[in-house]
């Protein structure tokens, strides 16, 4: 019985299943907003806590979770869940208030109060509690110190610090120039651009969901799934050779996972036409990759234009693609900047699913100049 459960959890923690479940779960929670209630939060946290505590008896689970530098990940799991719930819960409560007679809570309490004592006492208390937490944490748990540095002996797996493991996880799907350089830059630029892209005047200075649905769905998908989930799975579920290991699996250094990934050019020339890849020179390389270049170009440069068209230009079944109302509302510059950043963000899950479904390695592959997408 327990083994069956462990097998089930191991299976569900696999990259494909976990990512899909988490994404669908999040989307469902945005659709059925009653799940952000106090009751479901209590149930959810109880289940999570029981799962976590009970799992400690599994030696493989314990080994990974109890590593001193992995403690923050446990913190991330519980704190991020809690505060996401807390923000959504307050937002939905406010939405109910404004849907009825009332005003949002933050508006009801808009009278001014003395900062001393109302705020400084809270801050004082926060400092005291945090100091106690830090002291207890530091007394109970020694900071990790491994063997002295040895440049000749690389550990397997070699992992970046935990907060960069989302980026390291991206390396599975993208080359380092994208996963390690372009995407981090775009995350920073994209975050800084949010206030200039988002022209929705509502929801400024109070919790709400109804008035800012698109913004919140996109941001939380990025933060919770593409960042936090990848950090957590990169820490707990990626073992030697960056292979996937379930939470109850032993990190076997000798496990070999066959890599049979193929490029779009292979699909087109070898599988479809039954010919060898064109070789020799610059133009042969361009010819080899023409389909991939077309796909990426269409995705990044044609799709945003198409998406700006009004709904009636789309055939039935594709009308959801139309972002015409955003184009109208935001103006061309904001629209193209926002859509481009959004599509860049979505390229990660798209590439993930292409990998899982077709073993796709590169859409465009110019290994000659390290330019692989």
């Amino acid at each position: 019985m327990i083994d069956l459960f462990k097998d089930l959890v191991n299976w569900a923690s696999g990259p494909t299943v976990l990512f899909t479940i988490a994404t669908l779960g999040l989307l469902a929670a945005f659709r059925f907003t009653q799940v952000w209630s106090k009751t479901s939060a209590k149930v959810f946290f109880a289940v999570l806590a029981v799962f976590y505590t009970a799992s400690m008896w599994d030696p493989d689970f314990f080994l990974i979770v109890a590593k001193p530098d992995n403690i923050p990940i446990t913190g991330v799991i519980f704190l991020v869940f809690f505060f996401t719930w807390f923000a959504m819960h307050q937002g939905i409560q406010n939405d109910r208030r404004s849907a009825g007679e009332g005003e949002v809570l933050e508006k009801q309490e808009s009278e001014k109060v003395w900062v001393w004592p109302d705020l400084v006492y809270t801050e004082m208390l926060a400092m005291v509690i945090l100091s106690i937490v830090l002291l207890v944490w530091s007394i109970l748990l020694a900071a990790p110190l491994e063997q002295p540095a040895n440049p000749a002996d690389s550990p397997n797996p070699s992992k970046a610090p935990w907060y960069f493991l989302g980026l390291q996880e991206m390396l599975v799907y993208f080359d380092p120039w994208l996963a390690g350089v372009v995407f981090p830059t775009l995350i920073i630029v994209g975050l800084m651009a949010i206030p200039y892209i988002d022209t929705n005047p509502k929801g400024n200075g109070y919790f709400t969901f109804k008035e800012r649905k698109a913004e919140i769905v996109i941001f939380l998908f990025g933060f919770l799934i593409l960042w936090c989930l990848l950090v957590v799975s990169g820490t707990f579920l990626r073992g030697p050779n960056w292979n996937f290991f379930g939470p109850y699996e032993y990190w076997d250094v000798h496990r070999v996972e066959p890599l049979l990934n193929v490029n779009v050019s292979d699909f087109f020339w070898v599988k479809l036409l039954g010919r060898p890849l064109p070789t020799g020179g610059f133009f042969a390389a361009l010819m080899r990759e023409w389909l991939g270049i077309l796909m990426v170009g269409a995705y990044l440069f044609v799709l945003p234009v198409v998406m700006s068209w009004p709904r009636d230009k789309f055939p039935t079944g594709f009308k959801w693609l139309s972002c015409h109302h955003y184009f109208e509302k935001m103006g061309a510059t904001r629209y193209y900047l926002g859509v481009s950043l959004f599509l860049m963000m979505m390229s990660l899950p798209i590439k993930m699913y292409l990998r899982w479904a077709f073993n796709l390695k590169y859409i465009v592959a110019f290994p000659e100049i390290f330019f692989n997408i």
Partner: protein
Amino acid sequence: MLNRILAPLSAAWKEATDSQVWTSIFRHGKPVSNRNRALVMMSNVFLHLHPVKSRKAGIKLRYTWCMGGITFFLFLVLTFTGLLLMFYYRPTVEYAYADIVDLQEHVPLGIMRELHRWGAHAMVITVWLHMLRVFMTGSYKPPREFNWGIGVVLLVLTLLLSFTGYLLPWDQLAIWAIAVGSNMARATPLLGTEGPLSASLTLGDISLINAGNDARFALLGARSVGQPTLLRFYVLHCVGLPLVAAFLMAVHFWRVRKDGGISGPM
């Protein structure tokens, strides 16, 4: 009985608070009257980060989660514990690891390194949560767009501070984490040896970008993680990045006030 103990105590307290020393430090009475509540905020350089009065909803814990304040407090804790660690730590390949072992083995009840490391991990998380809160309350919207940008830079600086500090114990965990993290710089377009298009930067037959001068070399100060890296990361960790972070924090806090204090519905 109780009174016989308390009476002289309160007399002594009155004596102390009436003294020239006390009144020179605190130029007003206890903050129990509204006048003194205003004065305490205005006459204290630290408290005057705050306004005298603030909207009730804005200062509620359920609204701010105190997450920005907690992050700042953690920064102060890290500055203080980091300063103490600097007394004992030498950033050389020869001594670094041994100094950390010394800290661990020979300092009775020593938890400075623990406070510093766990505090740093905590700060990374609280910065994320602060960003989450600011996003979820829409507080980046006008007039606070610029301050959100400053906040994003501060978030990046927090990660970089943590990343540079990660190397300093000079153990296996440290150098390989930095090796993996910095390997990515090799793939920088144009500026990394294994980055797209960098091979096209040539002067005649000579390739301008090589392992001895590319983006990764600039980060590490060497072709692999070594003594120059340790010194570089140490200087950035202890001086460079904290200075920039402190500077931007000043801007961040100043702008919180100038943009209308803690956000609230218009």
